[in-house]
């Protein structure tokens, strides 16, 4: 299974990638913002994206993906957790939501559940 991880924070990408690795997933592409993520969606089975990123934010990225692809699961991993933000994200095609901050263990547990 191939994953795409988009976050402008390299620390956050490392935490997410480490969690995926710990779950046995190693086929992972990383992107620093939505624009780079959009160029790397080919063959991806699972998308994990931040919201607040430069150039193209996560919501714009999700909308662009959903214009062509209604199926690939998209997990939003973000601090943007006000009720209206969550509703906006889900309306635009986000399938799961993980709120920052988290411990590595909770992130792993949540990802494991979602990926199944």
């Amino acid at each position: 299974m191939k994953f795409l991880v988009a976050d402008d924070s390299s620390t956050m990408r490392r935490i997410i990638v480490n969690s995926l690795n710990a779950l046995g997933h190693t086929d992972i592409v990383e992107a620093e913002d939505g624009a780079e993520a959009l160029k790397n969606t080919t063959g991806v089975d699972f998308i994990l994206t931040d919201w607040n990123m430069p150039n193209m934010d996560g919501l714009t990225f999700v909308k662009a993906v959903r214009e062509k692809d209604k199926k690939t699961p998209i997990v939003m991993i973000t601090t943007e957790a006000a009720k209206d933000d969550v509703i906006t994200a889900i309306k635009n095609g986000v399938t799961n939501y993980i709120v920052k901050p988290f411990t590595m263990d909770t992130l792993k547990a949540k990802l494991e559940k979602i990926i199944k």
Partner: protein
Amino acid sequence: MDAKFINPFISATLQVMETSAATKSERGSLFVKKGEGPLTDISGVIGVTGKFIGSINIGFPKDIAIKVVSNMLGGMKIDDIDDSVKDGIGEIANMVAGAAKVQLAEIGYTYKLSIPTVVVGRDHHLSFPPNVPCIVVPFTAIGLGDFYLEVALKMIIPIED
């Protein structure tokens, strides 16, 4: 600035430090910044626009910044303020402003977050526009030492209270 606008930032800081950096902290007494304010080695800064404008700054001495980011990365060894520390402190600021945003949205005050910027330099201090009040909240990271949260916000919509 009303306590109800500062408290979300204080609880967000405690929560982010404990959850993502395994660092328990205690808050000290807040004060209004006059002149230079506290000196730190690295600060994460988030600009805010919406019902407030201004910025949120979280500043750390070098040793604490390194420990915090090392903890975020599961205990990774870090020797100095490198790119990973800069990035990690920016993300801490992002999470603090984001977690406070959730609490403030619940009482009807919404804002947008900028992308974090990080300022590095031995004993620097940050200045804010003179017409924006800045509240400093000192924290003690238990067993590590002191760091500071600075909240400089100006209300755009007047509040009836």
